[in-house]
């Protein structure tokens, strides 16, 4: 590492992109979500508004009955008009005032059945305009869509002013006959008001619809920004449907056996295969390999999404080729490997994949197992236990080896052909499985010397764990595929 801190940090930045965990944060989904949530309430309010004009029309017959009360409302409406004369007040403020007046009147009087529903539409309207205000403010801030108020306000201001003028004239003439119930006047006045409300309403509706359209378009735009066809997002959502990790299965098996033996009041917990595998650090290495593999898989998907057409099919062919090279069908052959064969095969393979990976540990484990299997055993159970332990230890060592290989392939700068690596990996995988089979066979033959009741059980147990070991090893080797695949892109 360089002594200079600047270099240290810049390199740190450089490697940031390679970090799979940071890929997740590239998607701006939360923002988009909040947007879509924001415009929803507006939509429902607006749909309520479309019923508005009908509502008002049907209420007309009841207006006569309400004339008395209207005279009480009139001064308040006048006050409203005065407010309107001050051009400094904005429209939303006016609607707020209206709302307040409505609240007051509706709490004071109880017999306004027909009207109160009309007013509630009005209050709905004002809340709707407030809401659209908020949304459009948010929009102008975020994506620059024009506010519906702005769209509607130009015409609206003119209309409101005209109405005010006529109203002021009317009031002058009507003032002397205060107590007389001039139905015609009130009717015309009310219909004028409803007209204003109607036009304002329709302006807001059309403005709101425009905004909605803009929001919708912009949302899709944002979602598809740098992600045509939403492929990345789809990949994001579907990758969670993966199967359970092997390490989790093994971990659970281990815990289950621990609890069982504890329940059976055994002083010493029976050292089952899963427990042994964990104590030989097999699980932690497998878990780490899964972590790397997942990271590479995610990166791989992201990279693939940036390709299309023939380029994409070319790359997919390449990736499939690597996958096929890594695959081998172990069940088909009955090959076994003695200690020497295993050593030679392993060293050749590893050297062809990455020279930095150390083979000492797995070879030492292999030697030790061989040594142990040649000693004298005093009982059948001790052979059985030794066999299970040997299988678990070699499997754990293989996990570690695969994990180290994964790490080295990830950062490898050696210009070794990936196809060669994949081939060697397949041979390596086979070698380890052959060695496992050899060990199982050896212990099984030791067990056959005994002829007790449990012998056949013990033998099948050894073979069972041997086949388990093989499948764990093969699964672990599969985890290297995304790592290899990523190195060709």
């Amino acid at each position, binding site marked *: 590492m*360089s002594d200079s801190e600047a270099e240290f940090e810049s390199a740190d930045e450089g490697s940031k992109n*390679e970090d799979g965990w940071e890929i997740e944060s590239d998607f701006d989904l939360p923002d988009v979500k909040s947007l879509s949530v924001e415009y929803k309430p507006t939509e429902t309010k607006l749909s309520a508004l479309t019923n508005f004009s009908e509502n008002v029309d049907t209420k007309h017959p009841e207006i006569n009955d309400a004339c008395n009360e209207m005279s009480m409302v009139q001064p308040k409406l006048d006050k409203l008009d005065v407010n309107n004369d001050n051009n400094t007040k904005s429209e939303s403020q006016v609607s707020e005032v209206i709302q307040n007046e409505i609240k007051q009147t509706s709490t004071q009087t109880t017999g306004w059945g027909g009207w109160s529903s009309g007013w509630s539409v009005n209050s709905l309207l004002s809340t709707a305009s407030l809401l659209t205000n908020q949304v459009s403010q948010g929009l102008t801030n975020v994506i620059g869509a024009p506010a519906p108020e702005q769209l509607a306000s130009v015409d609206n201001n003119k209309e409101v002013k005209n109405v005010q003028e006529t109203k002021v004239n009317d009031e002058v003439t009507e003032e002397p006959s205060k107590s007389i119930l001039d139905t015609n006047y009130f009717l015309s006045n009310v219909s004028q008001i409803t007209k204003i409300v109607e036009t304002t309403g329709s302006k807001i509706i059309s403005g709101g619809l425009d905004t909605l359209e803009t929001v919708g378009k912009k949302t899709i735009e944002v979602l598809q920004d740098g992600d045509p066809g939403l492929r990345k997002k789809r990949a994001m959502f579907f990758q969670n449907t993966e199967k359970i990790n092997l390490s989790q299965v093994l971990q659970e098996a281990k815990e289950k056996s621990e609890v069982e033996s504890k329940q059976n009041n055994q002083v010493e917990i029976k050292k089952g295969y899963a427990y042994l595998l964990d104590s030989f650090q097999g699980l932690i290495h497998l878990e780490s390999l899964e972590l790397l593999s997942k*990271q590479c898989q995610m990166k791989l998907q992201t990279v693939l999404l940036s390709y299309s057409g023939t380029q994409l099919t070319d790359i997919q062919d390449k990736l499939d080729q690597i996958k096929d090279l890594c695959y081998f069908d172990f069940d088909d052959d009955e090959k076994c490997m003695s200690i020497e064969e295993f050593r030679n095969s392993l060293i050749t393979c590893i050297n062809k994949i990455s020279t930095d990976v150390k083979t000492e540990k797995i070879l030492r484990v292999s030697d030790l197992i061989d040594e142990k299997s040649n000693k004298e055993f005093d009982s059948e159970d001790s052979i059985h236990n030794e066999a299970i332990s040997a299988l678990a230890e070699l499997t754990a060592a293989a996990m570690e080896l695969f994990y180290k290989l994964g790490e*080295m392939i990830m*950062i490898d700068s050696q210009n070794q052909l990936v196809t060669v690596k994949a081939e060697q990996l397949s041979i390596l995988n086979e070698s380890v499985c052959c060695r496992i089979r050899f060990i199982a066979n050896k212990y099984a033959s030791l067990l056959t010397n005994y002829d007790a009741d449990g012998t056949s059980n013990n033998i099948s147990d050894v073979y069972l764990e041997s086949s388990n070991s093989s499948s764990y090893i093969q699964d672990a080797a599969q985890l290297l595929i995304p790592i290899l695949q990523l190195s060709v892109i």
Partner: protein
Amino acid sequence: MADLMFDYQFRLILIGDSTVGKSSLLKFFNDGKFVEVSDPTVGVDFFARTIQIPSGPRIKLQLWDTAGQERFRSITKSYYRNSVGALLIYDITKRASFEHIPVWMNDAKRHIEPHRPVFVLVGCKLDLVNNGASKREVTEEEAKQFGAEHNIFTVETSAKTGSNVELAFSAITQEIYQRIKSGEYQMEEGWDGIKSGYSHHSASIDFNNYIEAEPAKSCC
């Protein structure tokens, strides 16, 4: 080798420049032996040891020994997230390794978020300074000052003589345990920094065993 019975499992990560002595420190803590020749760590290595907090729980430490080499950093970073604590390691005889400590610390903080990791600052190769083989480039006071500033425990160790090795690990373990007791740390699904151990969640079974054992004694 880690014991089976433990109440908690903590995941700790060792970070610092390459060749400061992370692996040697860990090997001594794990085996009680000093390895004269040590290969550079490839990626991340794992160790586990169970320690007993005095009149407290048994704690399994899962120790992640990271490679200090630059080329491994994209890999080692993946392991930060699931750690509850980090040992910041520097070489007493190498000034630059101490100066990089804030960088390592911020890196860990950033990746362990939203969890607040426990740090300890560990100086290595104390024996080289004591026997005069190398010149000290980082004073104890400087390290202490850094520790006081960031409110972290500091210690100088030697993986050759074993001096203070145990202390470095027990200090970080104690601090994590304190934070569990105070409620700052909780076990979380999907985070492996702290896990409860086997003996912890099967306390009720222990109780049953105890009841059964009693009458047997009175019989005889």
